[in-house]
């Protein structure tokens, strides 16, 4: 086997892996029950599938200028994919798209509860249970 044949074989494998991840994300998008589960499926080709495709390109075009461009592309994707996933997940949680029963651990609910308690305390100090004496003292 010559060098070119091995490179072509590797390129084919990487291309098929990347396309398979896209296909798996599509199946997950159709089959999964709620928005968060669908988001979990679609993040697979966003990073790993793209890495496979970019590796295939880099194997075929072995020049520094191309590889530099591919690394930049991957960096951009790695920076921006979490931003959109975070915003969509937060919006989904707030509008009730996420079924509460589907979450085993819900740390955001505890954090929201804590924040609301602090807000109530700040706005109405006399509503606190331990400040009952302060309500009677002016009389």
């Amino acid at each position, binding site marked *: 086997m010559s060098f070119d044949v091995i490179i072509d074989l590797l390129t*084919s494998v990487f291309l098929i892996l990347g396309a398979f991840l896209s296909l798996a*994300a*599509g199946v997950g*998008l159709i089959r999964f029950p709620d928005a968060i589960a669908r988001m979990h499926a*679609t993040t697979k080709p966003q990073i790993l599938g793209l890495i496979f495709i970019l590796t295939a390109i880099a194997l075929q075009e072995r020049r520094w200028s191309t590889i530099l461009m591919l690394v930049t*592309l991957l960096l951009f994707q790695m920076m921006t994919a979490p931003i*959109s996933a975070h915003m*969509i997940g*937060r*919006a989904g949680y707030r509008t009730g798209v996420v079924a509460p029963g589907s979450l085993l651990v819900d740390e955001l609910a505890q954090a929201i509860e804590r924040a609301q308690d602090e807000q109530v305390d700040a706005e109405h100090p006399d509503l606190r249970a331990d400040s009952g004496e302060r309500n009677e003292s002016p009389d």
Partner: protein
Amino acid sequence: MNGWVFLVVGLMLTAAAGMALFRIARGPSILDRMIASDMLLTTIICALGAEMVYNSHTRSLAAMLVLAATAFLGSVVVARYVSRSGHK
């Protein structure tokens, strides 16, 4: 390189794009549609890359770069709109 590799890759990417389109049309909430359109955009980036390997050129690299850099803006805007208005 073998032609059937690109046939398989093209069929897989087309099927993925078709499923994303199905979810965009069907999706019960705006967020499902945004997730599906994100996924459609990722599939388009992958398809541009596969096409560059097939025709052995690098002309689409700039388009891939711009798509990867700006793909998040749409979903961020829609997510902000959804959480402001409480719209489902």
